[in-house]
């Protein structure tokens, strides 16, 4: 019998245990330019890229337990690009000495029928926002500096309102579980951004 036993998931090439290492911080609009300037100098020599994304956060409420949260994101600047569907696990408690927040992560690139499909699966949109900003890379590290805006009329991304006078700075690395050396690299990179921005390990649970 050539076919695999039915009980085995047909995971053909999916990356099963990917982890996101994350450091976050924020920068005031006044200091944004100098931060971008520094990032341009520190990061890889690729044309600096801006982005404009629309993110929808979906919840699936089950009978028991916590609701299941998925983030669906599409690019406003590149409407033909696939949607990005993202599942983020709970931050690992792990050891305190680790410099970055570590959480399980599943990234799915999906076709444009994603919102309809999620609705059909029983997900309901919780909230949505527009993020615009700059994205940099340094090796495996990705730095996203984004300005978040609230969507005033659901679904209309033209009608937005800025959330604050500062931008969100995220330094992240995607790696298979157990690659803690990553967090060391991230820390030294974050050091170089001081004092413009202090990137820290922020546990989202403590802020809710």
């Amino acid at each position, binding site marked *: 019998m050539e076919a695999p036993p039915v009980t085995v998931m047909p995971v053909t090439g999916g990356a099963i245990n990917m982890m996101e290492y994350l450091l976050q911080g924020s920068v005031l609009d006044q200091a944004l330019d100098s931060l971008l300037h520094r990032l341009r100098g520190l990061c890889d020599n690729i044309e600096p890229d801006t982005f404009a994304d629309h993110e929808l956060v979906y919840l699936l409420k089950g009978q028991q337990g916590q609701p299941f949260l998925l983030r669906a994101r599409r690019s406003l*600047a590149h409407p033909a690009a696939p949607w*990005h569907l993202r599942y983020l696990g709970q931050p690992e408690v792990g050891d305190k000495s680790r410099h970055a927040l570590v959480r399980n992560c599943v990234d799915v690139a999906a076709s444009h029928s994603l919102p309809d499909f999620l609705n059909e699966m029983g997900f309901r949109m919780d909230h949505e926002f527009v993020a615009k900003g700059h994205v940099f890379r340094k090796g495996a590290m990705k730095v996203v500096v984004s300005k978040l805006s609230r969507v005033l009329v659901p679904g209309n991304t033209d009608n937005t309102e800025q959330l604050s006078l500062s931008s969100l700075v995220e330094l992240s690395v995607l790696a298979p579980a157990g690659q803690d050396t990553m967090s060391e690299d991230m820390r030294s990179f974050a050091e170089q951004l001081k004092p413009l921005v202090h990137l820290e390990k922020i546990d989202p649970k403590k802020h809710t």
Partner: protein
Amino acid sequence: MSGGPAVRVSIESSCEKQVQEVSLDGVETYVPPLSMSQSLARLAQRIDFNQSDDSNDEDVSSSDAQWRQEQEEEEGVVRFQPSLWPWDSVRTALRGALTEMCVLHDVLAVVKEKKYMALDPVSQDSATAKVPQVLQLVSKKRALAQAGSVLLRGAERLSRSVCETAESRRQRDFNSELLRLRSQWKLRKVGDKILGDLSYRSAGSLFPHHGTFEVIKNTDLDLDKKIPEDYCPLSVQIPSDLQGTAYIKVSIQKTAPDIGDLGTVNLFRRQPKTRAGALQWNVCLEAAQNVLLCKEILAQLSREAVQLKSQVPHIVVKNHIISQPFPGLQLSISLCHSTGEKKNQRSPAENKPDDHLYVLEHNLHQLIREFHKQTLTSMVMPHPASAPLGQKRLRLAGPMAYDKSAIANLQSNEGLLEKIIKQAKHIFLRSRTARTIDSLACRVEDPQIQAHWSNINDVYESSVKVLITSQGYEQICKSIQLQLNIGVEQIRVVHRDGRVITLSHQEQELQDFMLSQMSQHQVHAVQQLAKVMGWHVLSFSNHVGLGAVENIGNASALTVASPNGEHAISVRNGPEQGCRVLVQRVRGGGGGGGGAGGVCVSGGGEVVQDLRWAQLRGGYREVNWSRMEGRNFIYKMELLMAALTPCP
């Protein structure tokens, strides 16, 4: 000699009487006052005559000593008790002064006479000439002032120019030099060192060599010495493995040395002499960067050579990669790295006309840069920004449901080595095709071959148009025009009528094909000629199925009849067997043209005499072609046809 010491001698008694003792009752007993002479003697004793003038100390003492000796002779009595005589020292001093005055007087007298002695102004004791020089001094002062002002003006001009040179020197100083270095090279400061980056990493290179150089301040320079012309306050230190010059050498070798010229003009770069005053560091760094790039090319090629599977495995030996594009042919790519000291070690072999394939060497450099660019451009930022980093096109593959072939296309990355081998094959095939055609054209005079090469071609494809013509008949015989598209492995021949023939890389195939085309051309040409001459084509075949079998291709044949139908000429031409021409005439024909032009056409014995059989054709007689007049086949043919055509 200055005059005697100017001593002011003031004589006074400070106190009349000195208290010797105060008794208990307050009565003071005085010391009896010194007599006039006593006190004078006492005071005079206090005077130190020698200390009056420091500069003349020695003179005085020497004259003192001299004088004392004289005195000893004169006054032997007092000699043993000089202290007993209170005026002794005074007398000595005064006497010395007198002597000196006398000497002075003499000297002045002598000087005044100017007969024996002149005072030189250099001498320090200008005091002697003081009085007459006052006026001179004034005039001298004025002259000096004038000279001084001239000098000052000059000095001002000089200082201005010195200022300017200092300015330019300042420009050449370390910091400005560093700034210039900084504008062309990537620098960073590590600790107290300044390190630079030679690597192509920022341009997309993945070569692991760190490629750093160190900037050194050249300060140990003697400021007093003349600054050498090529002095530069900044120098760079390049890692030892990147020093010297390097280049990639690509060559094609064949076991037999008849490979021919592959466009190997000797344009080997002589290391350009560094211009004086040129930026030495820039020359250094560019050379080192070139070494680095060459190393990267070789590393990339070696890696691919090991990974790539081919029928004949590629061989990598040290700095050498050997590949076999075609059987019996060897493509070798090697890295030649010469550090400066080894210049003399050039083996004589290198002085031979080198067999570089400069085109390929250039293309290798171009390819590695394309490769760099590809790594840069394939890493575009994800959209939306939250998506993971990675190749954009692979990100699309999932949601766009790319099928296998599309994914394979995305991933197919033809390596540097594959590309360069393909290019080498093409270059080889092209040059050999050219050689084959040329040698055929030389060997075969009739028909003629013309090859028109296109100037513009691709790295993998070029084309040549081959015309086969007969001399003097170019206008009427345009039968064979071939377009040869030379590819990587094979040659595609496009016939004028649209037929496509694919030839392999074997030289023989092309040669055979050309020979068969040339033989066909002759028959075609006769056909064209027949039309012009008014003859009728009775039959024509490119590939005759009869007769002896040719080794190459097929023979072609043609039969034409004269305008009045009395004669027929049959031509058969094969690539190997050459041509045979036969002439047939009508039985009943008078054989008017018989024998004309050396053609032996004779009617056979006629059995059927009836006139109606006269139009039947008779037997064929072969023409002794080699004895025909005419410079080429078609000209001979024209003569033959002309001979067989009855005069109007």
